[in-house]
C-alpha cells in the first residue's frame, strides 16, 4: 500500500514549509497557494486529506469547502486558521470539516489530527 497523499492549501510559504517539515517524512504532500488552485487540485481526486487554510486569496477556505461538498466531494478536510473563532469552527464542522486546528500549532497536534482524519483510521 502506497503512502497517503495530503494536499496542503495555504498562501503562506512559512506555513507550507512548516507542514512539510512535520508531515513530509510520513506522507506524500502537494501544495496549493490560493482557493482556486486548491479547488482544481482537490477535484483531481488524488488526495486522501486536505489541510485547508481559511484565509486565502481568490477563494477563502470556507468557500472551497462549501463548493467541494456541493459537488458531492467527500474528501476529508482539516481546517487551519489563525482566527480562533468558535463560530467559524462550528460553521466549518457543519459544512463537513473533520476538525479545526488553530495556529500556531504543535507538531503532535497536527500529527494526531491528520492520523485521525485519514480514511481507514
Amino acid at each position: 500500500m502506497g503512502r497517503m497523499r495530503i494536499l496542503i492549501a495555504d498562501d503562506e510559504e512559512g506555513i507550507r514549509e512548516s507542514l512539510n517539515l512535520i508531515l513530509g517524512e510520513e506522507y506524500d504532500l502537494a501544495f496549493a497557494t490560493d482557493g482556486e488552485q486548491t479547488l482544481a487540485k482537490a477535484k483531481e481526486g488524488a488526495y486522501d486529506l486536505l489541510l485547508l487554510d481559511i484565509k486565502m486569496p481568490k477563494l477563502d477556505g470556507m468557500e472551497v469547502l462549501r463548493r467541494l461538498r456541493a459537488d458531492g466531494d467527500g474528501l476529508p478536510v482539516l481546517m487551519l486558521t489563525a482566527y480562533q473563532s468558535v463560530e467559524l469552527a462550528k460553521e466549518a464542522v457543519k459544512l463537513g470539516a473533520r476538525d479545526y486546528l488553530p495556529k500556531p500549532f504543535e507538531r503532535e497536534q497536527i500529527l494526531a489530527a491528520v492520523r485521525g482524519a485519514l480514511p481507514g483510521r
Partner: protein
Amino acid sequence: MTPLEQIQNLLVVETAGIPRLFGMSLLEHHILALILTAITTLALGLLVFIAGPNKRLNQIFGLYSLSISWWAIGETLFVSSPNLFIAETYADIEWTGVFFIAPIFFHSVCLLTSLRSSWIRTVLRIAYGSSFLFLALHFLFDIIALDPQPVAYLPVYNLLTPVGFLVPITFFVFVNLGLWKLCSAYRQSSGQRRIQLRFLFWGSLIGYLGGSPDWFLIFGFHVPGLNPFGIYGVSLYSIAITYAVFQHRLFNVNLVIRKSLVYSLLVTLLTVGYFSLVYVIERIFQTTLGYQSVGLSMAAFALMALMFQPLKVGIQRFVDRVFFRAPREALVRQVERLEEEVRQTERLKAVSTLAAGLAHEIKNPLASIKTFTDYLGARANDPAFLAKFQKIVGGEVERINLIVQQLLEFAKPVPPKLAPVDVPSLLNETLDLLSNELVSRHVEVSRNYQATTPVLGDSQQLKQVFINLILNSLQAMNGAARLELRTAREDTTVLVTVADNGAGIAEQDLPRLFEPFFTTKPGGTGLGLAVAQGIVKEHGGHIEIASRPGHGTAITVSLPLAT
C-alpha cells in the same frame, strides 16, 4: 342575646364627641389614608415589578411595596371590622405586613446601593429571621399583641404585650439602618443617580415619619394631629418615588413603559370619571324629577364618546409636559453623553478589528517560526534545513517587524512637515527606488505629468504613499505589465493617478480595501492602503479607487496645492 350579638355589642363606638375635619371623622381619615396608602404603594410596586420582573431589585422592591400595601389593607379591614371575631382575623393580616416591611426595605436599599459585604448578608439574615420569629410567636403562641380593644378614636386596635415590644424595636433598627445606608450612598453619588437617591431617601423618610405615629396607638397614645394624618405621609412617599420613577428613571423603567403606564392610568381615571358623571346626573334626575331617562343616559354616553379623544390628547400633552419634559441643559448633557458613548463604541470597535487582524497576521509567522525552531535541534547538521530555516524564520521575523512598524504608522501617524512638493520629481524618485522590482517584473512604465504645480505636503510621507500604491499595482500584474503615472490639476488640488493593467479588484472587495489587515494578496499585510489613506488624510486629501476585474485598477490621490 346570642354570644355573637354580645361580641358585636362590644364594638359599639361612641363617635359624637370626636372632632371632624374636612367633613370626615378621625376614623374616616384613618381609613381613607390607609386606603390611599394601599392603592399607591401597590401601584408603585406593580410598576417597578413590571419594569423588570427578572431583576432581583425590582422583585424585592415589588415585595416591599406589597408588604406596605398588605399592612394598610389589613389595618383598614381591622379598624372597620363589624365584630371582634372578624377583627382578630384582619389583625393577623396587618401584623404579617408589619413584620416584613423593615427587613424588605433594608434588603431593597442593599440591592439599590449594591451592598454585598458579608456583614450585610448577616444583618439581612437577622432581619428576615426576626420577621419569621415574630410570625411564629404571633400565630403559634399569640404573644405579640393583646386582644383587640378600642383605642383613642379607633373602635378596635391592638396594644402590645411585653414580648411584642420587640417588633417596633427591630422595625426602627432596620428602617434606620436602611435610611442610613441610603443617605451614605446618596452623599457619595453624583449626576442622575444622586437625584434618584435623593428622591428615594426623602420619600422614605417622609413615609416613615408619617407612618410612625401609628406605633403610638399601639402603645395606647393618641397624639392629636399626628394620628391619623401622619398616615397620609406614606402615600406621599409612594407619590414621590413614582415621580422619581417617571421623571428620573429610578429602577430604569424605560420610556415606553413609563408613558404607557401614565397614559393608561390617566385614561382609566378619565373613563371612571365619565361614568361617575353619567351616574350622578342620572341619580339627580331620578331624585329631583322622579323618573329615569334612557335618552339622557344615551346623550351622556354620546357626549362622553365625542369628548373622549380630544380629552385623551389633552392628557397626553399634559403628561409629556409634566413628566417627560427634561430641562434644556439636561437634554444637551444627555445628547453629549450619547455622542461620547457612540464615539467610545466606534473606538472600541476599531481597536477590536485591529487586534483581531494583528493576532491573525502575527500568528501565521509565529506558527512557522515555532515549527522550524522545534526541528532545529534534530536537524542542526542538515545544510538544506538550515538554509530553509534562515529563509523562513528570517523572513517571518522581518514580516512581524514590518506589521508592527506599519501598525504604529497607522495607529499613531506622525504629523506631516508641510512644504511645497514637486510631484513629478517625487514620482520619479519613487520609481527609481523601485527600479529593481520594475525591471525584474518587466513592467512598462509610462509617465504623463500634466500638472507641475507643487502640492503642500511632507515629501517623505508622500513617497511612502506612492511606494505603497505602486507596490500594490506590481503585485496585481502578470504577463505584459503596464504601469502609468499621471498628474492633473483640478481646481485647488493636484490629482495623482497610479494605474495598472493588473487583475483588478472584485466589486465586493472595494469597500474593504482601506480596512487594516484586509488583503487579497498572498503574503500581504493588509496595511499598505490603510497607511496610505491615513497619510493622505493628514494632508487634507483623499484617495479614490476605480477598478474592473480583469482590466486593471486606477488609484487617484488628491492633494491640495501649495499656493
